[in-house]
């Protein structure tokens, strides 16, 4: 928040070696409108927004950092689940020699 446009230009040029043509800054007011269970106002902190114009005719598009990956693991997890379920069913099955008669009947 204390960083000025001059500071930002130097920062980008020296640390990231990004050629900067212009920097404009503004302070974004954080909302103070929300109230908690005690009706006390909850403040979201203010932040500074900087608009940086790159030099040398460069363009920059913000990349998609959370692309939807077609995970191949889904099929394997389903198969694993089915195998585990079948294993459990087999364990719980009664003696096949009883012929489906419930355990309530003695012997």
């Amino acid at each position, binding site marked *: 928040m204390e960083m000025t446009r001059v500071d930002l230009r130097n920062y980008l040029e020296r640390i990231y070696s990004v050629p900067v043509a212009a920097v404009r800054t503004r302070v974004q007011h954080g909302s103070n409108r929300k109230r908690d269970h005690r009706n006390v106002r909850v403040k979201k902190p203010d932040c500074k927004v900087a608009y940086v114009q790159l030099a040398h005719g460069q363009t920059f598009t913000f990349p998609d*950092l*959370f692309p939807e990956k077609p995970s191949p693991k889904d099929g394997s997890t389903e198969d694993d689940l089915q195998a585990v379920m079948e294993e459990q069913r087999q364990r719980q099955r009664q003696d096949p020699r009883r012929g489906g008669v419930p355990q309530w009947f003695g012997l």
Partner: protein
Amino acid sequence: MAAARLAVLCRKVSAAVQTSRSFMSPQVPAGTRFSLILSPKSIPSVTSLHQCRILHTTLSRKGLEEFFDDPKNWGEEKVKSGAAWTCQQLRNKSNEDLHKLWYVLLKERNMLLTLEQEAKRQILPMPSPERLEKVIESMDALDKVVQEREDALRLLQTGQEKPRPGAWRKDIFGRIIWHKFKQWPIPWYLNKRYNRKRFFAMPYVEHFDRLKREKHARIQIRKRNLEKKKAKLLQEKFPHLSEAQKSSLVQDV
């Protein structure tokens, strides 16, 4: 001068990374996703720090790509990372190494912060948020080590304990405080804002100062009495564990 050095350093870093890229890629085993190595063993050269970071061959964004992670890690749920740097590990490093490490950690921190903000925007969980905590911890440890070195140097060269000058003064409330000096381009007797500050207390403040001292004294006495009571209680309950008995036993032996 510092800027030129930094620029040279940045160019060296990018050059080193580009040269090391060709023989670094086969070392990374397939299927693992490693972010910046935070292990201390691979420190002295910056190339080994970027060991598992395979950047694009075309650095067309001229550095803005450093604000983002390795594209292979985009969309991953977890990204593995090593432990944070400890103070003792950093104390074994030279000043130049610490200087380079600071900027590496700074760029990593910026990258993680952008990732965090983007995750908040997309309303998705940030992959492995503990990386950010580790980086912050490492940076704090580095700052502490550098401050220790500066303190030692200053004590040896000048004998000054504190880096910032100050003085013990009585403020307007009668309290004795450590007033830290500020840097001004004008002397103090021409400084309107400084002269409005009062480093003395009027006589009517003495009564309140006395009340404060009495309160402080009462608290101390209460604390001492409580300790005595606790000791007495323990003595009654466990006479065989008392220290007086122990010393007598030692003397007997």
